[in-house]
């Protein structure tokens, strides 16, 4: 499954919180595309993924728009 999350105009840590809450409802192998605008998310979402065992597949920058693709795992670190 592929899900999109709109976290634009939210400041960190809100994009991380929204990512965390969305991932809770996903299964291992699912992908979450997080759309955000706070540059802090480029750092924070990958850190959150590393400590929780998920994988960042891509970070795409388009002007001020940032799209981070997270692949959900079973969360075992």
């Amino acid at each position, binding site marked *: 499954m592929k899900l999109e999350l709109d976290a634009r105009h939210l*400041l*960190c*840590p*809100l994009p991380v*919180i929204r990512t965390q809450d969305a991932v809770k409802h996903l299964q291992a192998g699912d992908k979450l595309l997080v759309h955000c605008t706070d540059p*802090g998310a480029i750092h924070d979402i990958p850190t959150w993924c590393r*400590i929780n065992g998920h994988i960042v597949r891509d970070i795409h920058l388009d002007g001020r728009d940032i799209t981070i693709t997270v692949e959900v795992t079973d969360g075992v*670190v």
Partner: protein
Amino acid sequence: MSGKRKAVALISGGLDSMLAAKVMLEQGIQVEGINFFTGFCVEGHTHAIRKQDSAKPKRNNALWVAEQLGIKLHIIDVIEEYKDVVLNPKHGYGANLNPCLDCKIFMVHKAQEWIKENGFDFIITGEVVGQRPMSQRKDTMPVVARESGAEDRLVRPLCGKKLPATLPEREGWIERDWLYDFSGRSRKPQMALAEKYGFTDYAQPAGGCCFLTDVQYSVKLADLWKSRGERRYELDDIMLLKVGRHLRPRPHFKLIIGREEGENNFLEGYRKQFVHLRALNLDGPLALLDGVANDADIELAARLVCRFGKGRDAEEVEVVVTDKQGATRVLNVAPLTADAIPQEWYV
């Protein structure tokens, strides 16, 4: 003892909670972190907004701490529930609008609910007796344990030896001898312990972990309540208090004026919610007008806004005023001189 005992550590992003969690990890406890986002946290925001800070890494300290410790971190949005803590603190405020004791009770209570839901055994905080004037005194630390409902499932590893034994100690899940006896305002014992564990580059927030301990911020928040005639706030309100210059030329409106490009960009996100002003064809800040303003007020606002842009010394400047529906008009105004702006206008 069946399996590994599990504890949740309140992780603020500062050194003390990092050390407290580490002390428990060293005792073989399985630790996960919990961090509460109240909207007032110093974390990230201002760094993310201000362009001039963009060279600094924009890390979230709580996430950084969790990664250093190798633990999971749960960040919980408590914005709505936390309002009651700020607006009606049973134990009152500290030096500014910081309701530290109620805040600690609230956070430990949330952690208590979390451990029940998630099958964890106890809670860890980085509190140190005598460290903070309100929430970390010998007489208030038991209040936190009692009123939060955590009771003796609340362990403070950095000063545990100075406090009565907790359930995890009595049950033998952790060794009391391995806890510390830190007290007082000195940071030296924490720094020595950080060195022992090889922690460097940790965050050392001055004053406190949130904007409510900041004098200037508290003055702005009090001004917001006074101008509205009631004590309430939304997330956008408290975010905007962190950004720009705030000037209140009249009781019924104030201006939020960007101080640099990053702040102007941030304020742009609010254009649809506020009447806003910006000089035409001249470099200058974006200003949001918060409140109600008649034509004379808007002209005054326009004159004030050009004071902070390139046209401050021009005889006349064209200022574009846009209303909430997006309709624009251009005013030709004379910028206010510096001495025409009374100091009391600055919130």
